[in-house]
């Protein structure tokens, strides 16, 4: 195809023309498929899940290797300065015990109050636990690959959290692995509130590992550095009171937060059922969710 005419051969000229047509057909097919996946993203659920399954075993196995190597280095680092660390941990533990006792008392009081108000308590079951084994490191979107899939009960739309905080929600699920839309993705908008004061805010990813936090009511900037943002449960997708981020920087009408659950260091991620099943009921995949 380097020259306009490959010579006098009729066959070669025809071949050139057909390959030209093939490329134009490729562009058209691609645009149609792209339009379909933008307008009706659920069309390709099955095939995307299958692709996830195809690479999941390799990714998981390689992750074990990198994890082990990384663990050896951090493990060696922990031995260094162990005595100092030990005394620090002991002090922290003593403080923690006091706090736990206080929290237990509050919890009991809370239970009594809730019983008095006859509030229905939703149990937060764990659907599955998995490891975060990969991420979309060459795209403007922030996705992660979780090593738990449809066979473990993971369905599209389920929230994913780690012991530290909210990780994101499931957007593709294969049999063995699923793709998570991370909290730091630009398209992931989480209704939240300030832990201090309970002011309703909205958290939206910035695509670079941090989140944008904006108060719902315009006015004075309610944030302080170090504030913790937790989910509010509004919208019914995410369970309430899951920590999302810590405020690290203030700007004119909001703040920038660092997600508490860093996918790179999260060892285990927990998939939970959608808090209000109605929130994902419009997706057929979520209807048969347990």
């Amino acid at each position: 195809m380097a020259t306009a005419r490959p010579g006098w051969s009729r066959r070669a000229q025809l071949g050139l023309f057909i390959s030209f047509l093939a490329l134009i057909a490729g562009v058209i097919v691609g645009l149609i498929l792209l339009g379909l996946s933008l307008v009706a993203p659920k069309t390709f659920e099955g095939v995307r899940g299958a692709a996830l399954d195809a690479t999941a075993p390799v990714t998981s196995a390689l992750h074990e290797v990198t994890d082990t190597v990384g663990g050896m280095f951090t493990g060696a680092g922990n031995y260094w300065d162990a005595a100092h660390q030990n005394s620090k941990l002991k002090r922290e533990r003593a403080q923690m015990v006091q706090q736990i006792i206080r929290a237990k008392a509050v919890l009991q009081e809370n239970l009594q109050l809730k019983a008095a108000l006859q509030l229905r308590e939703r149990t937060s079951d764990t659907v599955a636990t998995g490891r975060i084994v990969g991420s979309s490191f060459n795209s403007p979107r922030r996705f992660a690959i979780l090593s738990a899939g449809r066979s473990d009960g993971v369905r599209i739309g389920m929230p994913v959290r780690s012991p530290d905080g909210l990780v994101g929600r499931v957007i593709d699920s294969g049999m063995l692995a699923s793709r998570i839309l991370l909290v730091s993705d630009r398209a992931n908008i989480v209704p939240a509130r300030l832990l201090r004061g309970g002011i309703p805010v909205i958290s939206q990813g910035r695509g670079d590992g941090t989140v944008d936090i904006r108060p719902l009511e315009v006015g004075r900037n309610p944030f302080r550095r170090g504030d913790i943002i937790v989910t509010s449960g509004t919208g019914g997708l995410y369970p309430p009171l899951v920590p999302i981020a810590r405020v690290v920087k203030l700007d004119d009408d909001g703040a920038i937060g660092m997600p508490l659950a860093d996918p790179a260091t999260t060892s285990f991620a927990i998939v939970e059922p959608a808090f209000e099943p109605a929130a994902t009921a419009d997706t057929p995949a979520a209807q048969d969710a347990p």
Partner: protein
Amino acid sequence: MVRAALASKRRIGQGPVPFAMAVPAASVVAATLLSSLPIISNVGWFPDFGFLVLVSWRLLRSDPWPAWWTIPLGLVNDLFTGAPIGLSIALWSATMLALDLVDRRTMWRGYWTEWMVAAVLLAIDELIQWKIAAVMGASVPFRAMVPPFLVSVCVFPLAAWLVSRIDRWRLGQ
């Protein structure tokens, strides 16, 4: 001495490797599969390996694979990188078309020309990814797309070198 210098380095019986025709496409798929490496990053600054290798092959040879193969190659890239299906199919086919047109226009080629052409194509690739992300509700600020673009432009010579090595290997030269 003179005789040895004049003698062809090619030895008898050393021809193209089996399936030499499929090697370029296979290397593009292999590059695409690099995105399933267990790298967990908070920013998407890594280059688009599949696209880099595709452009490198096309700049090296005018017909690395039958033209319609870009459709399955693009589909594989979309499936494994998590991009919306159809994005790479359209973009990669359009890239091949654009390079056909460039081939008709350019009088001569050189490293710098090729690098420039590749940089323009990579810029268009990043721009379209950015646009599509915005359409899908993730309107990332534009300056966030500059580092991945610079990284991929810097990685291009390496990809081109690798591809030329693979090409020589597959043809048994």
